[in-house]
């Protein structure tokens, strides 16, 4: 059945270090833009870890270290009008969609100026203008929600595609099945990015599915699939470009499986005792998506090291600024907790009752 492997991971020729596919029309500006987003993602996360260690981040920090290319590359192929619903580890896609680091910092620090005003954490918010629907914790649930976004868009004659990211673990949920199946039946332009990053918390993919490739799951929904090297940012861009074209032209849903690797634990506290010896080090050394892309940019003479350093410096400036901004935000006022469950013009806020005051 229709599983394309054109951009699937390949062994490097005779021990040469891995780079990225050259099979692309991406312009220099775009390539450098991709680089900027990769660095932005990694460095925002590193800053979050710092803030976490300073106990300024209130909840957990979830890293995408080693898998940034999947989120960045796929999201970069979308238009402003297209929608994404990412996983916690798809910060890169969120940034590409135009969410500013300041919003992410403020959210993590539970600040009043964060987009949820301190009500929810990390990337659990949304921005309809930018086509960003933040996830909830419950894995799988965003798949049917995205199906509904596309159903609504179709009724409004909007020509958009919707991308829902899901993990090797999240695909085991009933919600994933129901949402994708319904989208497939309705031939909605839903693109699933299935992230094969080897683990769901501590659970290896072999305990999530008896399939070898997540792409095989597409067959049961009657939709086409592609396997992509998730650590090749250019390849990720290319497969999404094709998938989005296909879906936008009325082809219906598509599944992209991105093969990548989660180098950090599930969250900062995870000791990764379940990981085989040397595995992480192997990926770090041989298959880091940013290393690979840097090598590519240099090899292909898209940029020299100076240019790359300049980009990185710009990224750091942005992060510093945004982080300062977020730190300067106050915490929310306590009573704010009571507001906005419903439209408060109709149902009053749920203020803490004064005891027997009447």
């Amino acid at each position, binding site marked *: 059945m229709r599983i394309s492997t054109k951009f699937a991971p390949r062994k490097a020729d005779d021990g040469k270090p891995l780079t990225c596919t050259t099979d692309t029309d991406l312009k220099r500006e775009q390539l450098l833009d991709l680089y900027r987003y990769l660095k932005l993602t990694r460095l925002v996360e590193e800053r979050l870890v710092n803030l976490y260690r300073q106990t300024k981040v209130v909840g957990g920090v979830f890293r995408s270290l080693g898998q940034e290319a999947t989120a960045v590359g796929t999201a970069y192929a979308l238009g402003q009008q297209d929608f994404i619903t990412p996983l916690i580890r798809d910060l890169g896609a969120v940034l590409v969609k135009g969410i500013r680091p300041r919003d992410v910092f403020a959210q993590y620090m539970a600040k009043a100026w964060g987009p949820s005003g301190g009500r929810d954490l990390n990337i659990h918010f*949304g921005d309809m203008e930018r086509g960003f629907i933040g996830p909830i914790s419950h894995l799988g649930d965003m798949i049917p929600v995205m199906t*509904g976004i596309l159903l609504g868009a179709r*009724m*409004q004659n909007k020509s958009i595609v919707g991308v829902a990211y899901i993990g090797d673990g999240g695909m085991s949920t*009933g919600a994933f099945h129901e*949402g994708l199946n319904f989208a497939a039946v309705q031939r909605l332009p839903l693109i699933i990015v299935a992230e094969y990053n080897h683990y769901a918390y501590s659970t290896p993919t072999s305990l999530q599915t008896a399939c070898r490739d997540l792409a095989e799951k597409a067959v049961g929904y009657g939709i086409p699939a592609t396997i992509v090297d998730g650590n090749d940012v250019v390849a990720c861009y290319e497969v999404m470009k094709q998938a989005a074209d296909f879906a936008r032209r009325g082809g219906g849903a598509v599944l992209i499986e991105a093969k990548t690797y989660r180098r950090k634990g599930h969250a900062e506290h995870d000791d990764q005792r379940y990981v085989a010896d040397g595995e992480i080090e192997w990926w770090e050394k041989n298959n880091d998506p940013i290393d690979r892309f840097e090598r590519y940019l240099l090899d292909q003479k898209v940029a020299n090291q100076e240019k790359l350093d300049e980009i990185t410096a710009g990224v750091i400036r942005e992060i510093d600024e945004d982080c300062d901004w977020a730190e300067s935000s106050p915490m929310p006022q306590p009573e704010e907790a009571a507001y906005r469950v419903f*439209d408060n013009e109709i*149902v009053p806020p749920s203020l803490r009752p004064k005891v027997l005051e009447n």
Partner: protein
Amino acid sequence: MSTAVKKEHKSAPPERGGPATLVEAIRQGIWEEMERDPTVFVIGEDVGTYGGAFKVTDGLLDQFGRERVIDTPISEGAIVGAACGAALMGMRPVAEFQFIDFISAGFDLLTNYAAKCRYRWGAGLPAVFRGPCGSGVRSGPFHSLNAESFFLNTAGLKIVEPSTPYDAKGLIKAAIRDPDPVLYFEHKKLYRLPRLREELPAEDYIVEIGKARTVREGRDLSIITFGAMVLTALDAAEELEKEGLDIEVIDLRTLAPFDKAAIEASVKKTNKAIVLHEASRTGGIGGEIAATIAEEAFEWLDGPVLRVASIDTPVPYSPPLEDYYLPQIKDVVDAARKLAAY
């Protein structure tokens, strides 16, 4: 082969107003809202060609087409999720559960996504989730649910249950126009009950969500109830009248947020209250209402707030068992007599 349609079947559009049963009233309400507002659409299992298991959406497909009348796979999670997503886009979905019992399979998305969306990031979800609820029709443990208690402790969901055609139409319209998610429960025993048939206005109207209705005024004792139990309460009231007891019956109509003011006003007048509902007693909405009365009208109470409800079991199938399970007129009468004598 199976896509062609057998007979030249075409369901008549509903009347505007006129005499209507509960099911016709709901159908009128949805139909009119779909005509009025192109963002309103219907989604659920067998709601299209078949017109819904109870024919609430009968004829909508012919009138409004496949884009706005969507037959789904058997996927309650997808129905809820898709309604949420479409609502985010500015649409106003009316999602049907074939029986409200199947809401359990949409529970996750309802309580986590639909209920919390506005709170989390300000995105209101104007979606209606409706379906047939209730027991007393010999349908056994899986087609008899009263589901309100599942949702009472999750802030962010409104819950409505009409007991008359007038209210049914007014409330479905209000629910569709509401900026927040509304669960709309329809007691299947009332759908076609001739006793309820009544004349509806030809003009557009709504019944405000959050407002109870005094079905019967009385001075001696308040029965607070809703849904099919309104009839049980009225029948009990009539019997009690013979004994000289003047019973007030309040139909909550909205279960969340329920009308505290109306309840309190009634109880402050009668000083005695019975809460009557069809779901099992323990953990039912009766506890919330009784506790509220006992807390906020304590000084006006001349007796305990009594709850009359179903026993704490699944809903059994066999008529003698289901009759025992359900609160009967006699149970209400007994409770009222004892409380009156207090």
